[in-house]
């Protein structure tokens, strides 16, 4: 028998991450509430008073980033820092690294909160942040990795428990995803263009975006479930075999499923099909986690009625099961044709976010806080109220959004027998769902109220207890550097004793799917048939495009006309992959709260856009779009154009040599022409050629017009 060692667990870092999680969680949910009500009552955008940083387009990425990276991010660090130490029988490798990690992460969140509302974004969903912040994220993630692997190395357990397999896969995959998605060429201190363009950028984006859900919102939380659920239920995990199979199957299959975000787009059919079939194959591995969670509760269901922690965990795991069944269904083409671009998607992600991540976080915190503060939970009643208000909130959120999604689908595609769109005016389809948006707002408000009650309960719990900063523990020292083989033990034990092999195998498995999909798309030219008439943007259009990105137009407007008659009748010829080759980043979007804009070019006169930006309701009565009067008065800044042109040419856009020297001149010429045009159409404001609006008009009027010139696609 080996020597018993005394040591202490670090609870301070756990408490810090826990507090950060619920405090940022409240902020993220509040921003979500604000943007939900903006869709009911557009004046809440405040942009009509010339305040630019509170519009839906700018706040929406703040909401998603705050909830994903601040609320859930800090939540998963809470769970990992607590369970990792105990599962390995070791204190964290380095307190310094722990605190660098903590403050670094909070600083990143602060940077996000200080850049996104100011329009500093690159429009890639969940990867909007400017390149210096991207670098910071990578550095902090490495710090986290060193700290985690350091702890694993100095562990007092021979083998790694299943939770830690998930933590390892999380770490390596998020690192790979983040780094590849951040391949971008800076043109200024905060601005950059994606290395990938058009269809390729779309593929990389959804390989990233989908797997951010998989490896940031799912795998670490599964690991946490494997720790906190058996602890709270005081029951053994149902099946060790199931853990093994569903873990490896999950991480291998998940990575392939990204293209299901791009069904019926200009993505080649083979990529789309891979996305579909791997998503369908993902049901069982995902449900493996749910089963192992729910079946662990066998014999403990009576306690679920009494223990709020278990209630939260059960609803979380159930929501996970529902979302991971719905996801594969949404990946089937004909179902996706219904859901894509509609509020069904919003319902789907919120079942996952509010149910799975939100409730698991709260369940965990309710379990942790009394232990960290050596006391009982302040109020079980309040926790129960939180549970019911939150659960009802999820239902009130999701059901109207499903309803809205189907309504949109049916209205968008309904034809009269004579072959015209029954709801030709897109606004009719928007006004129809506003009542659903109201109910959704109520649901969100309920969930938020629950969270406030929860935070109050946790603070009261902390106040009545005394914090245990360093928790005494003891365990036998590890005798062997490498776990010895025991006769008759399960084959999988081998790798459980070898964390670095586990890291290696995980890396190989998660790399395969991405490589098979991305490498051919990026390096085989025939995957994206060239169209001879498609030309790079003019300098002014490029400037306008960057304004479109700055304002977050992507939050409501797609630029992808799918090959459905209902879309080609409404918007024009369906989109071809060759039309996007100069798009860095791509701006297909995934939501149509407003109409598609891919072929809006030349559809309306310049003055229409001018008036529409000043106040959308003048041109489209009942529109939910914020007003953008500041675009009409903001001076047009062309100073970055030369470096933008150079950056784009470096990445492969065929601007001629020395074009950067005449770019500003060219932009001014075009601006003058547009302002003259506006003048002819009755807009008499002076100095329009020096305002941002002309650049945005230039871009919008260019959109989708290249193939009208000569609609022959030539494969090269």
């Amino acid at each position, binding site marked *: 028998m080996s020597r018993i060692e005394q040591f202490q667990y670090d609870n301070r870092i756990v408490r810090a991450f826990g507090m950060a999680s619920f405090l940022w969680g409240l902020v993220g949910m509040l921003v979500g509430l604000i943007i939900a009500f903006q869709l009911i009552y557009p004046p809440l955008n405040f942009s009509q008073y010339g305040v630019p940083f509170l519009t839906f387009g700018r706040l929406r990425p703040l909401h998603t980033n705050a909830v994903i990276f601040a609320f859930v991010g800090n939540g998963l660090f809470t769970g990992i820092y607590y369970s990792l130490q105990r599962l390995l029988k070791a204190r964290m490798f380095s307190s310094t690294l722990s605190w660098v990690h903590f403050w670094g992460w909070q600083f990143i969140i602060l940077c996000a909160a200080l850049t996104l509302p100011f329009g500093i974004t690159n429009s890639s969903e969940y990867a909007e942040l400017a390149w210096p912040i991207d670098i910071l994220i990578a550095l902090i993630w490495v710090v986290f990795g060193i700290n985690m692997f350091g702890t694993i190395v100095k562990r007092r357990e021979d083998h790694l428990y299943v939770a830690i397999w998930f933590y390892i896969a999380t770490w390596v995959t998020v690192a790979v995803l983040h780094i590849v998605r951040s391949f971008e060429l800076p043109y200024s201190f905060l601005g950059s263009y994606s290395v990938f363009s058009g269809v390729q950028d779309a593929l990389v984006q959804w390989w990233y975006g989908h797997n951010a859900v998989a490896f940031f919102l799912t795998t670490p939380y599964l690991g946490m479930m494997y720790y906190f659920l058996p602890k709270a239920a005081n029951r053994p995990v149902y099946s060790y075999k199931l853990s093994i199979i569903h873990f490896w199957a999950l991480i291998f299959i998940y990575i392939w499923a990204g293209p299901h975000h791009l069904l019926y787009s200009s993505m080649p059919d083979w990529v789309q099909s891979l996305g579909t079939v791997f998503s*369908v194959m993902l*049901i069982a591995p995902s449900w493996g986690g749910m089963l192992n969670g729910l079946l662990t509760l066998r014999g403990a269901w009576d306690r679920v009625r009494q223990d709020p922690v278990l209630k939260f965990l059960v609803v979380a795991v159930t929501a996970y099961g529902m979302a991971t069944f719905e996801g594969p269904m949404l990946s089937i083409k004909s179902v996706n044709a219904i859901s894509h671009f509609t509020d069904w998607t919003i319902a789907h992600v919120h079942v996952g976010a509010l149910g799975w991540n939100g409730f698991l976080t709260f369940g965990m915190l309710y379990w942790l806080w009394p232990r960290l503060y050596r006391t009982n939970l302040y109020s079980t009643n309040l926790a129960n109220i939180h549970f019911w208000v939150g659960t009802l909130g999820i239902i009130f959120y999701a059901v109207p959004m499903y309803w809205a999604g189907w309504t949109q689908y049916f209205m968008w595609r309904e034809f009269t027998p004579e072959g015209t769109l029954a709801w030709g005016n897109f606004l009719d389809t928007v006004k129809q769902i506003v009542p659903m948006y109201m109910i959704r707002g109520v649901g969100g408000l309920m969930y938020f109220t629950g969270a406030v009650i929860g935070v109050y309960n946790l603070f009261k719990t902390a106040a009545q207890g005394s914090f245990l900063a360093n928790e005494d523990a003891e365990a036998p020292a590890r005798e062997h550097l490498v776990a010895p083989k025991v006769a008759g033990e399960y084959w999988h034990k081998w790798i459980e004793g070898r964390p670095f092999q586990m890291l290696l195998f995980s890396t190989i498995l998660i790399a395969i799917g991405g490589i098979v999909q991305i490498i051919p798309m990026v390096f085989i030219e025939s995957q994206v048939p060239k169209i001879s008439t498609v030309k790079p943007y003019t300098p002014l259009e490029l400037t306008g495009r960057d304004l479109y990105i700055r304002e977050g137009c992507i939050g409501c407007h797609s630029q992808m006309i799918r090959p459905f008659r209902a879309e*080609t009748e409404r918007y024009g010829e369906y989109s071809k992959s060759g039309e996007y080759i100069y798009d860095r980043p791509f701006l297909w979007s995934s939501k149509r709260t407003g109409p598609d804009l891919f072929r809006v070019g030349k559809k309306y006169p310049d003055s229409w856009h001018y008036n529409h930006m000043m106040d959308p309701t003048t041109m489209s009565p009942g529109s939910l779009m914020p007003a953008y009067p500041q675009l009409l008065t903001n001076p047009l800044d062309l100073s970055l154009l030369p470096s933008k042109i150079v950056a784009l040419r470096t990445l492969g856009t065929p601007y001629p040599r020395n074009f950067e020297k005449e770019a500003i001149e060219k932009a001014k010429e075009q601006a003058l022409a547009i302002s003259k045009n506006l003048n002819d159409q009755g807009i008499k404001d002076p100095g329009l050629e020096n305002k941002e609006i002309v650049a945005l008009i230039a871009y919008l009027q260019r959109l989708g017009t290249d193939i009208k010139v000569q609609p022959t696609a030539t494969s090269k």
Partner: protein
Amino acid sequence: MKTKKYLLIFLWLVSQASLWAQAATTPAAPDPQVNQLPQIMTWVFLIAGSLLFIVAMAYMIKVNQFLYKRALQLEARLNGVELPADGSAVVADPAGDGFWTRMRKKYWEDAVPIDREADILSHHDFDGIRELDNRLPPWWVNMFILTIIYALGYMFYYHWGGNGLSQTQEYEQEVAIAKKNIAAALAGKANAVDESSVLALTDSGPLGEGELIFKNNCVACHGAKGEGGVGPNLTDEYWLHGGGIKNVFKTIKYGVPEKGMISWSAQLKPSDMQKVASYILTLKGTNPPNPKAPQGEIWKEEATAKPDSTAKEALPSTTK
């Protein structure tokens, strides 16, 4: 028997793949009308086939049960043991599980009961957490296998040799079917009006509908009373693209994209365009406040003799 079952499931899945992917359209065929029947037949076939399959399975299970009983009786007799004639003693297997229990354990769920779980409990614990070594839930394994078969069938159907349509082909088919249906719907109807046959309506009913269409679609550019805004004044005698019902109808139908007037043919039925065009003609001389300055040329009804040619002449002269 097992192989046969999987084969049947596989075939069913492959047929499903085509149904799911083309729910809105019909399979490739020159005439969509004729093709309605096979679509229904596919479903009839599927449902009937599934029922038949269930019946066949139930029958085979019965036969199997009977043979099993007979075999046990034979074996018992050979060993000199007498069994009750009804065979009740042998239906239950030695472990005491009945048929449905065995089926459940094999294909559905096979957890070790809680009171016996000490047998499969891990010896080691992680911070107090122990693990059971329960068998994988059989239904879960079966579901996993089925999804893999589905994936292979899907890839085969769409890429490796099946008849799956590409999304572009699906689209072309959808448009072809729509064209046919529209032609059928328009045949002999008032909706069939076009710019050569359209006449101005004067009844208050259709004009009221026209006014509503105008309010919903046109006021953004032409003003609430037709006084003009982004678009030209519709209440004066001047017209950019020709006045009179036929020219106004034509402008609405095809639009003047280079000047910002969109084509409304996708959004308004021909009869609706007729109504709104008729309503617009009634606006002449209403003198609303804040009128936009006249644009184009004075249109006189005498010129209606050749509306089309006039319209063509009017077009180039408008770009001033």
